[in-house]
Each structure stands twice: as structure tokens, then as C-alpha cells.
């Protein structure tokens, strides 16, 4: 029973970290991704300087190893959350790590049908805002959802790394009990739970894509 409580708590913490980070990443990643698309050479309002700047931030954000990102962000986390321990303290690093990742996927998704769709909108006399919000994003729904699914699964992976240095969750469990106290069974169960969570996220993602794809 004690074991069950332990797994339950850890699972909940992982779900909590993943869910909150996914939601916030979705919003900010979408905004950054749209900005990347709009300012890119093939976008609606190409702007070399702005694109170079945004693109550099995105690439740098993606290239910092997650463990190092957590450490780098410690002062910021303490300032925002008030502590550097527990699931909530993992959120800033998870979100800042995931936004650039998702933003690139958004940019790619929009570029895929970009030119034809934006030109169609322009030929109707639509404004750029309308083209983005009423044409580009709705028409790319499926790719955008697949992107956030992949991002969310990556976030699950990040939570385990965060867990190992005190964020709680399944990663913490596997590290503290499984590795430090040499309990192989805990590691295996934690792993199985992570796999189950990832499969669940993939399933939900696929279902949403299916709902949004006309047939």
C-alpha cells in the first residue's frame, strides 16, 4: 500500500509537470512559431533582422542541454516560484526548454502550405492577421497538434531529468529509490509508468488529430 501511494504520487507529479508545461508551451510556442513563419523569407512579412534574432534565440534555446538549462535557470526559478525543489520548480526550465522546440515545429507546419495558402488569402483581400488566424492556423491544425504531441512526449523525458535533481515525479522515484537504494523493481515500474504516460499522450494526440481532420 505504501508502495502504491508512492507510485501514485510520483505519477501525479509527472502528469502535473507535463500537463502544465505542455499547455504553456503550446501557447508561447505557437506565438513564437507564427512569428518565425511570418518573418521568414517565405513568410507574409519577411524581415531578415527580426527573423535572424528570433531564429538565434530558438536555436540557442534548443541547443542547451536540459540539465544545464535547469542549473542556469536556478536563480530565475527561485525568483518566480520561490523554491528550487518540487514539481512546480521544474516548470520554468521545462517550459523554456520546450518552447523553442515546439516553435520550430510550428514554423515548419506553417511553411508546408505557406505560400499557396497565404496567397489565396491575399487574393481574397484578407488582412495578414486574418490570413494567420483564419487560414494558416486552421489549415495546419493537424500538424500543429502532432507537433504538440511530440513536444509533450519530449517534456515527459525532461521531467525525469528534472526529477533526478529534486523535482519529484517518476524520474525522481527511479533515481532516488531505484538507483540510490538499488531497488531495480522501482526503476522498472517507474519506467513502465512513463511508457504508459507517453502512450496515453500519443493516443490523445492522435484522437484530437482525427477529430479535426475532415473525412
Amino acid at each position, binding site marked *: 500500500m505504501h508502495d502504491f501511494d508512492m507510485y501514485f504520487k510520483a505519477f501525479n507529479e509527472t502528469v502535473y509537470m507535463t500537463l502544465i508545461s505542455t499547455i504553456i508551451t503550446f501557447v508561447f510556442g505557437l506565438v513564437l512559431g507564427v512569428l518565425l513563419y511570418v518573418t521568414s523569407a517565405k513568410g507574409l512579412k519577411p524581415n531578415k533582422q527580426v527573423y535572424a534574432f528570433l531564429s538565434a534565440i530558438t536555436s540557442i534555446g534548443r541547443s542547451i542541454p536540459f540539465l544545464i538549462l535547469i542549473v542556469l535557470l536556478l536563480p530565475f526559478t527561485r525568483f518566480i516560484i520561490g523554491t528550487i525543489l518540487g514539481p512546480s520548480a521544474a516548470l520554468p526550465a521545462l517550459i523554456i526548454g520546450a518552447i523553442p522546440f515546439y516553435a520550430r515545429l510550428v514554423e515548419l507546419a506553417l511553411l508546408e502550405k505557406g505560400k499557396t495558402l497565404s*496567397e489565396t488569402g491575399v487574393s481574397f483581400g484578407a488582412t495578414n492577421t*486574418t490570413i494567420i488566424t483564419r487560414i494558416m492556423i486552421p489549415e495546419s491544425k493537424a500538424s500543429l497538434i502532432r507537433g504538440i504531441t511530440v513536444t509533450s512526449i519530449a517534456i515527459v523525458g525532461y521531467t525525469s531529468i528534472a526529477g533526478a535533481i529534486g523535482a519529484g515525479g517518476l524520474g525522481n522515484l527511479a533515481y532516488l529509490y531505484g538507483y540510490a537504494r538499488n531497488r531495480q523493481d522501482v526503476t522498472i515500474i517507474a519506467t513502465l509508468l512513463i511508457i504508459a504516460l507517453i502512450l496515453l499522450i500519443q493516443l490523445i494526440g492522435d484522437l484530437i488529430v482525427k477529430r*479535426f481532420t475532415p*473525412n
Partner: protein
Amino acid sequence: MITLKHVYKQFDISKKRHIKALNDVSLTIQDNTIHGIIGLSGAGKSTLIRTLNQLETHDEGEISVFGYQDIKRLNKESTRMLRRRMGMIFQSFNLLESKTVLNNILFPIRVQRKLHQADYQKAYDIINDVGLKGYASSYPHQLSGGQKQRVGIARALINDPEILLCDEPTSALDPLTTKQILALIKRLKHKHHLTVVLVTHDMHVIKAVCDEVTVMHEGMPVESGTIDNILFNPTHPITKELVQLIGFNMHDVAKKINKPGLVMSLKFPKHLTGESLISTCINKLDVEINILFANVTPNTEGIMLINVNGSEQNQVKPYLEKQGVVIKDA
């Protein structure tokens, strides 16, 4: 009327390589005609049509539409208003895959304002008109290519445009569907009094619907005229090759002919097509006439290449001209 005066457009491929897509284009497109623009790949025809609604802005020159002296100088809002007075259809149809046929067609209105009941009625009328009755709630991926282009046409017409721009509208369609779509464009042009600008690389398309033709080559219009005149009297080498492709190869035939006597091209205006002018000519004059080539233009003018031989061969030309036949020495 659409007028282009000395229009230039250049694309920079790299710092050193530039392409002159439009190289001093001057052109007039009359109201209420179907004006075809034909040329080989890279001739600048697509760029030309795209400058008309400013999907591309021209570098130099003036394009005047709807009485605006140069549409490049309109502000953003006026440019949008201009675009709403022109419908456009595309080679790849460019439908919104996540929306139904009805919502695709209503979309150009929806980007401007809230929909009214009357808009739905209008959309259903257009759906019936383009032959898509019963497909209003279908999605684009459930339609054939021809049906998709019908949706494209319906969508282009929902704002009651005065001009319809067609950028290779049938290049992705099979020949039979092409014929149907072109017939639809022609019918809608009459019904809605549209000025249609149609870009294509297919001379069959030009022959099937166009009243006027402009041949583009390397960014320049090299020849312009009515379809009948272009077929009868192509002057530029590219035009000659293009008209050959659709069976008007009399220039080739004329070149190969190696017989005594005269060789001449004739064009019979519409009112003469019922007369037996050639046989009367043979009866009246001491000549033999050998018909080397004959075909009929889209406006049912007859075009013929003949070889005339005999003691009165020089009187054939004045005789036929008197009857109203247009004659050109080949």
C-alpha cells in the same frame, strides 16, 4: 479595361543572378473579353497575371485597373478593396482542406464581415450554377480535380468580381475535364459580364476560350491579337510553333511545297463560309487550285492554304479579295 505600360519586374536569385520576369510589358486587356496569355515556362506569364492583383508588385511602369492610374501606388486598404473586385483561380485550386465546399465559397465574404442569410442563398445559387448541386457539405478531399476547380471558380465569384484571373486553371486537369471547366468559364463570363485574364502554356486552352491572345517570350509580349488573326498570321517564331501544335501548320506546309504557280493563305470571314468560292473561281478563271491545308478557327472563320497554277493565276487574288477573302502570300 486593364492597361500595362512599360512594366518591369526582376527577381533576384542571388546577388549576381537576376531574372527579368517582366521586361518592358505594355498591354491592353479589353473589358468583357477572355484574354489569354500564353508562353513557355519562364516566359513571365504567371508573374504578369500576379501583378494584376499585386500578388507581385512590379518594379517599374504602370498598371491601371478600374480607373486607378497605377495600382502599385494604392495604400494597403485600397489594395484589398481592389483585390475584392477581382476573383482568382489557381492551378492547384488552393482550397481550404479543413472547410466544406460551402464554407470555402463563403470564405472571401467571411474575411470581410459577418455572414447574412442572403450570403448563404447566394452561395447555394453559385454552387448550383457551377454544377456542384448536392456537394455543399462535402470536403475538398472528397472531390475530383474538376470539381475542386469548380469550387475555386465559385469562390472567386462570390464577391461579384468584375475581373476573373485564371492562373493555369486547367493545367492539373485531364483534357475532357479541361474542356468542361473552360466551357464553364466561358458561360460565366457571359452571364456575369466578366473580363477574364487566363494564363496557360496550352494552345488548346487558348483556342477553346480566348477572344484575344498575347504571346509572351522572355518577359516580353511578342505578339498580341484576336485568336483568329494569330492563327491566320502568326509572325513571331514562338507563335508559329504554338499554332502548329494545334494543327495550324500551314507555314510548315507552305515552306515544303515545291510546285509551279502561286502559294497563298486565305482567310474566309464568317459570312463567306457558306459560299463555294474556290469552285466558282476555278470555273471562271483558267486556273487549277490545289488545297494544301484547311482548318476552321474558333470563331468559325475558314483558313486555307492553296496552290494556284494556270494562265490566269494572277487574277485569283483580286477575284477572291473582291468577294471579301483576306489573302496573304505564303
